[in-house]
Every structure is written in structure tokens, then in C-alpha cells.
């Protein structure tokens, strides 16, 4: 059985690869390359897999899910500048693809220690652009 929990965080970022010139960056990232940065209301959907416990009837205590997402995602990223305040984005371009990889890296080991298993994350940068990642 799958269960999905949603959280939101708002953050600013700049998508620029310093090894490339300005034209190449604009070609690659478009308006996201604006050096002054800009922000998004990111929406993260975390899908967990497991079987309901016969006693509690729950796959996992949702308070635990909420707490874990708070610690690994919301607290470090909400109302932050990703490039300046959230490693590894001081050296990794904070595209939604890379942000999804980083969120997976943070969450996967934490959920491994719970009755649920991290199945998929979906990260919306805007409602018209989202990334799904299942650990591969």
C-alpha cells in the first residue's frame, strides 16, 4: 500500500553553471539563470510504501512523517536561498532535478529506519514543471 504526504517550502535559487558562459547558461536555464535569483513555492509529495500494522491500522505514524520532513526538508530549505544556504547547492546547480536527488538522499536513510519505505518523491517547481524520482 502507498501513502503520500505533501509539504511545501518556498525558496530562492539561481540556476547557473559557473563553468559556462552567460549565453550557454541562458540557453540551458533560461530565466532561471537570472544572477539576482528568484523564488518558487516548491511542493514536495513523498510517497511511502508499506503494510498497515494490524494493531494500529497505520503504515506509519503520520506525525513521524511530518516530523521527518520538517527536519530534512522544510527547516533547512523553507525561506532560504538554496545556493547560499543549503549545501550542496553552493557547488551543485539547484535545478529541480538536482533538488529532487538531494531530497531523496536526505529522506531515504531516514525512512529506512521506519516501518515504511520511501517509494517515490515528486517535486513541483511550479505547477507546470515537476520531477519524479524513485532512487534511480
Amino acid at each position, binding site marked *: 500500500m502507498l501513502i503520500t504526504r505533501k509539504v511545501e517550502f518556498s525558496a530562492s535559487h539561481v*540556476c547557473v*553553471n559557473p*563553468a*559556462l558562459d552567460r549565453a550557454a547558461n541562458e*540557453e*540551458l*536555464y*533560461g530565466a*532561471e539563470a537570472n544572477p539576482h535569483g528568484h523564488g518558487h513555492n516548491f511542493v514536495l509529495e513523498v510517497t511511502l510504501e508499506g503494510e498497515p500494522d494490524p494493531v494500529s491500522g497505520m503504515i506509519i505514524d503520520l506525525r513521524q512523517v511530518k516530523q521527518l520532513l520538517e527536519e530534512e526538508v522544510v527547516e533547512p530549505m523553507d525561506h532560504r536561498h538554496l545556493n547560499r544556504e543549503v549545501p550542496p547547492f553552493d557547488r*551543485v*546547480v*539547484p*535545478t*529541480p*532535478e*538536482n533538488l*529532487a*536527488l538531494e531530497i531523496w538522499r536526505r529522506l531515504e536513510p531516514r525512512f529506512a529506519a521506519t516501518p515504511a519505505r520511501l517509494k517515490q518523491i515528486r517535486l513541483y517547481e511550479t*505547477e*507546470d*514543471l*515537476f*520531477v*519524479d*524520482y524513485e532512487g*534511480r
Partner: protein
Amino acid sequence: MRLTRRYRFSASHRLHAPSLDALANRELYGKCNNSHGHGHDYALEVSIAGQPEGATGRLVALGRLDGFVESVILKALDRRDLNSEVEEFATLVPTTENLTAVVAARLAAAWPAAFADSAARLEKVKIHETRKNIFEVQIGPPEPASDVSPKRPTQPQIKASQ
């Protein structure tokens, strides 16, 4: 990893199977058979799969994907009448099943040349006809090479109901 980008287009259509009589068409398609046609604000989701490139952190440059979908799909479908202006629907009822298959086929046919330098592949196409009706076509993995055409949805209703 899968990246999905959403686009919008508005188009009119009329569902009418020429091989059926007026009554059968009305019964089959209901309001959608209105002889004057009607329209929708469609939302098109294009999903691509692959791994972000190390240096760029992208599956593909988003501007390139947008330009590709614009030139291959949106230019041909947005603010158009599907029945009279889109080649495939001269012989095919423009149900959203068929529309999704046509969009998938066009994207799949143009993808290899447009993204020859990219490891990303086209994975699926989803069309929201309205908020309530959503259609999806998977585009097969690249191997074998001859199987890049999208899987057609179930037979068009017209055939199933004959």
C-alpha cells in the same frame, strides 16, 4: 528520473463517426456530437526520462523542450479546429483517446532528430481534456528500435460499439 512539463492548448472538435447514422452518433457521443462543434482548454503533460547530466543538472534544457513541443504540437493544435485543420483527424474521430495517440506519435517521430545529442527519452504523454477527463499514453522504451511508436489506446469507441 522523470521530468514532466505541462503545456496548454485550446481547440475545438466534434465527435462524429461518418460510418454511423445521425441517431447512432448522437447516442454514442451525446453533446460532443453537436454539429457546430465545441472546444476545450486542454492541458498536455509531456514526461521525459533519464538522468540529469552532471555539469548542468538537467535532463534536457527546458527551453529546448518547450521549443520542441511548441513547434511539433502546440503550433498545430492551439486555437485550431481539430476536425478541419489537423491532418490526422480527416480520417480519425478526434476523441481525446485519439488526440493523445496522435500527439504521442508526433512527438515520438520528431524526438530522435531533435534530441539526437541527448540521452533523455520521451516516456509518456498525458492530456487533460477537462478537469475530469484525463488520458495517458506510454511511449515505449527505445529498444527495440522499431518500437518507438506509441501504444495506441484501446480501439476507438466507434469500432468497439459497432
